[in-house]
């Protein structure tokens, strides 16, 4: 596959702090004080830009961005919506992007907005797409429009899924690979999501991950996400895995992460935690584990050179 040229970076991007191939932490409001007062030794942070549209929080994020590399991980672009992008929302994110100059910017392979009657219905969730040629064309157009407006490459994250559509003709990995090649977007590989989706669909996670690593050009993978998930037993005996970002990364996901890094080489690895948010020190512990994994993979690769 030939990759399309990556969208041009904005003129200011040269002054942005790049995201290093180290462990970062998803920054949430309860930890702002820890950042302000303790200035922790964390390689980089990622935030949801939708939480920083308000001027007071945008000011605070701008102050953090002077000390740390920042990645903006959007949840509201709704890149899979057939009704197109919300231009007003895109403009808000573009404005924040110009101010923060993030090292990376990303959103999800999902949709949140649909037309119901005469008005949009905006559902705060990352809803699944059918992986069809029609959907690929729509997502491609939306990603191209977003990248053009932002003046930079977006990384697109594989979501956790609980259902699949009967009409899907491509695997999610193939869909993402095609999208990356067509638009020049990058891929944010969420290993926990790979694991959750695989288990929910009765598949072997390591094999599914191999499918991603085969279908997506290695150069396109710009970041890795790790998080915890919940496990629910259903009445029929089946097991449901829910991507709630509410616990430590599970052992199986660490193994998958090692598998991915061994093939991709070092990448920025993010620890996310969004529900039952623990003290910042717990996130630092998780980040330290990711950092050790990165060092171990890096030194093994150095030995093989």
């Amino acid at each position, binding site marked *: 596959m030939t990759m399309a040229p990556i969208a041009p970076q904005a003129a200011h991007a040269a002054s942005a702090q790049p995201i290093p191939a180290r462990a970062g932490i998803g920054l949430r409001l309860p930890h702002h004080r820890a950042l302000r007062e303790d200035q922790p030794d964390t390689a980089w942070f990622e935030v949801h830009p939708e939480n920083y*549209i*308000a001027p007071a929080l945008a000011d605070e994020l701008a102050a953090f961005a002077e000390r740390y590399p920042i990645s903006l991980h959007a949840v509201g672009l709704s890149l899979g919506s057939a*009704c197109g992008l919300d231009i007003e929302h895109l403009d808000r994110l573009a404005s924040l992007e110009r101010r923060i100059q993030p090292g990376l910017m990303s959103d999800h392979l999902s949709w949140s907005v649909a037309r*119901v009657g005469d008005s949009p*219905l905006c559902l705060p969730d990352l809803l699944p797409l059918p992986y069809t040629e029609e959907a690929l064309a729509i997502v491609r157009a939306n990603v191209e429009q977003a990248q053009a407006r932002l003046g930079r490459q977006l990384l697109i994250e594989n979501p956790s899924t609980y259902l699949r559509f009967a009409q899907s003709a491509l695997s999610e990995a193939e869909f993402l690979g095609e999208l990356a090649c067509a638009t020049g977007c990058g891929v944010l590989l969420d290993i926990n999501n790979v694991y959750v989706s695989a288990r929910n669909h009765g598949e072997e996670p390591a094999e599914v991950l191999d499918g991603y690593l085969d279908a997506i050009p290695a150069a396109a993978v710009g970041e890795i996400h790790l998080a915890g998930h919940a496990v629910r037993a259903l009445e029929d005996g089946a097991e449901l895995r829910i991507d709630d970002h509410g616990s430590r990364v599970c052992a199986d996901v660490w193994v998958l992460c090692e598998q991915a890094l061994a093939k991709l080489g070092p990448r920025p690895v993010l620890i996310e935690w969004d529900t039952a948010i623990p003290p910042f020190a717990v996130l630092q512990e998780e980040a330290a584990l990711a950092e050790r994994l990165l060092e171990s993979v890096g030194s093994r690769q150095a030995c093989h050179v």
Partner: protein
Amino acid sequence: MSSLAQLQTRMAQALWTDSAEGLIDQIAPGVVGAHHALGVHRNTIISGLTNTLRLTYPTVEWLVGEDFFDQAAFHFTRRYPPVAMQLSDYGREFPAFLESYDPAAELAYLPDTARFDLVVDQVAAQAVSASSIAVDLGNGVALKLDGSLSILRLTYPADRIRDARDQDGEALPALELTPGVYAYAVWRSAQGASVRLLPAGVAAFVQVVLAGGSAEAGLEALMLDAGAEALEQLRSDLFFAPFARLQTDITGETEP
């Protein structure tokens, strides 16, 4: 309409109405049944919207408790579906909704508490104001008001409820929640949203000038309420309030 648009409309309706008719046959059979899968999405959507309301209306939640709040939030979301992706703007109709929410009928102060929470949340979201609104008082004297200033007029003293919450509820049983006129100045200070109770006439003056009216028009509104006390109220409750400052052509800013 593309088939993807049709599918998304159908799925959005299924998630919003709990009826998956017309959608189930498009979902591939899997380990997790379609109803369970849709249930995960429904929970995420409802909890996302409820948490948005929880963040905006913390005093309301503290007053009524989590279960009551969650129920009220659920009924609110049914009536007011989100139509924009910027969730921080969601839920501005919640105070008015509580007016007509039957289970809260006996909590007459609840809608005002919500109005108070909403204004505090909106003001706190602003940047510390570098701008000000100048009111010409004549003779080279101007009153400068903080650019973030809002006036909130309530029937119940919501600040006392908020203060009780901040003191872990110790003061709540002793609170007098007598209906009356409670007018608040709310502005963005370095600490966040600051609140000060104002005499009703002073609040009327500020409301008039914030709306672009002249000092004369503001004074008329003040006099209606304060009568002979008007000038003393201006001096004691406005001119040297933390959200205001007097400036003269000759001396610059005045000190209290």
